[in-house]
């Protein structure tokens, strides 16, 4: 395939907006890790910086993105949703159609190839909704790597289907019964594993979080999302979208989408956090609405915490957004005024889930349903004739059981 043809479909972009040498995006980021992990993080950074300019590595990554993941994913004009909202044309970036059903596979594939390049034989990962765990288990099967996934026991209950999928793919799923028994606690346990096994083990972190170089690396492996969408939008509509919208848990699907448009001042970047049961009662995961800057799990960013600096328990109907910190680059984009962040509550996300099903025949992941809830307002802001791009980051099959439980007869 010629270079021009590859560019015609969008390619992942590396080295476009690097943090400083210590891993900071403005005031946020860095590398707040226990001493034992300092040298391994340096080695990881060095290895990552080497592969991202290595043509053979990039070629293999792109080959597998096409042949294994099924990229490019479509950009789909949601006509009935657009009509119902009465505003700008809504374009869905269909990451739900990627292999394993979410955007997580892009990053898992990139990092697993890096792990193999580094000579690691064992992978540990954390998972919240289970999509990153499934993606990691999948690429480990593909590359013949041993795989251990840590998952909060509450998340294992609400995402039981994904637990089973991981096991079918040959991964070992270890339940974490600490803290809120969700994503944050799974990350703690994966870090505890890694600090003891770092010689032969690679930690495959699933979101744009954690110590440098993870936020950079995860964003770059996900940059294919926005790059494809940009090319597809230009090809179909002859111009860029007026806004790009994504849900933000750790923030990898949002960074993957935003990255292609950060330099385009005319494109509004909108992140939607999990508003849970509302901000006032404290049962939510909206870091920018209810948090303050702090240090958690390796990075300086906005964190939900109490007066004493202990991390708050979070709540969201969506396991993938149920996390107390946000990726540091999002904190920087907010600080710069380049991106804006809003939230959707549990009930708004559930309503959006149902609406997308009935209007478009697509059941989104509950995480992505937050973006759908948010896009409706943005589409009205932009108005008819405009274009609003939204990342449909994952499919909802994994959530059907818990939604059935939540909605009962109202479904």
């Amino acid at each position, binding site marked *: 395939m010629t270079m021009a043809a590859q560019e015609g479909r969008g390619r992942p972009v590396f080295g476009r907006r690097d943090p400083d040498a*210590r891993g900071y995006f403005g005031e946020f980021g*860095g*590398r*707040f*890790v*226990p*001493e*034992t*992990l*300092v*040298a*391994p993080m340096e080695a990881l950074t060095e290895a990552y910086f080497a592969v991202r300019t290595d043509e053979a590595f990039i070629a293999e990554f792109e080959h597998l993105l096409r042949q294994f993941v099924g990229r490019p994913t479509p950009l789909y004009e949601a006509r009935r949703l657009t009509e119902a909202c009465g505003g700008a044309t809504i374009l869905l970036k269909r990451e739900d159609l990627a292999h394993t059903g979410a955007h997580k596979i892009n990053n898992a594939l990139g990092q697993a190839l890096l792990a193999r390049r580094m000579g690691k034989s064992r992978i540990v990962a954390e998972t919240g909704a289970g999509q990153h765990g499934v993606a990691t288990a999948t690429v480990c099967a593909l590359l013949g790597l041993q795989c251990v996934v840590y998952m909060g026991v509450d998340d294992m209950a609400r995402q039981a289907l994904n637990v089973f999928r991981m096991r079918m793919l040959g991964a070992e799923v270890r339940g974490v019964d*600490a*803290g809120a028994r969700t994503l*944050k606690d799974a*990350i*703690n346990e994966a*870090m*505890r594993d890694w*600090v*003891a*096994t*770092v*010689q032969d083990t690679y930690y495959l972190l699933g979101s744009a979080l954690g110590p440098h170089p993870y936020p950079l690396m995860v964003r770059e492996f996900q940059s294919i999302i926005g790059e494809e969408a940009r090319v597809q939008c230009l090809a179909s509509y002859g111009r860029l979208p007026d806004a790009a919208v994504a849900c933000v848990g750790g923030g990898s699907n949002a960074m993957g989408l935003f990255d292609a448009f950060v330099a385009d001042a005319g494109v509004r970047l909108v992140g939607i956090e999990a508003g849970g049961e509302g901000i006032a009662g404290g049962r939510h995961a909206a870091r920018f609405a209810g948090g*303050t800057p*702090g*240090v*958690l*799990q*390796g990075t300086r960013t906005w*964190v939900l*915490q109490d*007066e*004493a*600096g*202990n*991390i708050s328990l979070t709540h969201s109907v969506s396991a993938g957004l149920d996390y107390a910190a946000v990726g540091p680059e999002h904190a920087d984009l907010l600080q710069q005024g380049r991106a804006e962040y809003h939230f959707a509550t549990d009930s708004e996300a559930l309503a959006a889930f149902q609406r997308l099903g009935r209007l478009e025949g697509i059941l989104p992941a509950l995480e992505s349903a937050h973006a759908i809830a948010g896009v409706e307002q943005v589409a009205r802001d932009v108005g008819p004739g405009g274009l609003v791009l939204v990342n449909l980051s994952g499919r909802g099959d994994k959530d059907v059981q818990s939604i059935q439980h939540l909605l009962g007869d109202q479904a």
Partner: protein
Amino acid sequence: MSTRLEQAFARMKAEQRTGLVAFVSGGDPTLERSGEVIRAVDEGGADVIEIGVPFSDPLADGPEIQRSSERALRAGATLRGVLDLVGDLRTNVAAPLVLFSYANPVVRFGVEAFAARAAEVGVDGVLLLDLPLEEAGPTRDVLVAHGLAPIFLLSPTTTGPRVRKANDLGRGFLYAISRLGVTGVRDQVADDARGLVERLRQDSTLPIALGFGLSRPEHIRDVGKYADAAVVGSALVAQIARHGSSPALADEVRGFVRWLREGASA
């Protein structure tokens, strides 16, 4: 004028014995009883006492210290409470006191305000577990300006240049982690602990305390052959867990520390 930490290490050396550094979680089982525990650790003969600041996400700790942190948090302990506790105890405790914390509680308190308060109540040193040398710069300078000793961890993965940097920026002693992994009780001292300490000595001059996995007098005796002091944390914390609701808690802790000291005495 030398600091309490320097005096403690000078005394071990003069007495030709291994130092015992004892770790407890501040506020475990409650802030009040934690005061009894720390006095008992001091009376039992610890040379340095590390007081852990309870934190919701202790990702470098194994189960014993995780659970003690949870007990302390449930009983209402905070960084502010632990600092007040040190203030109440200081005149009744001979050993130097080192606060052992994750970064976020200190960041939330405000580094300058924290250092001022810690110095005021009589804290001697501060170890911030997830604030490695590369992130520690400004915080380290504030601590030193307030007369507090910044204490750095060294691990089997720490390179020579970073050992030298830790030795330059640190005060009081260096804390060597004997093995990869989280804190926790182990049956034996790590095989390569001697090699590690010998390597660290080539690039440092501060005294070295070795920890992670030590739980018995014979471990301390072993470690004393090459390190200046031995750190016992999880094993002591497990005693507090076992006797936390007993009126004999202080006696049990004092007895356990005395037993450990047998390994430190010869």
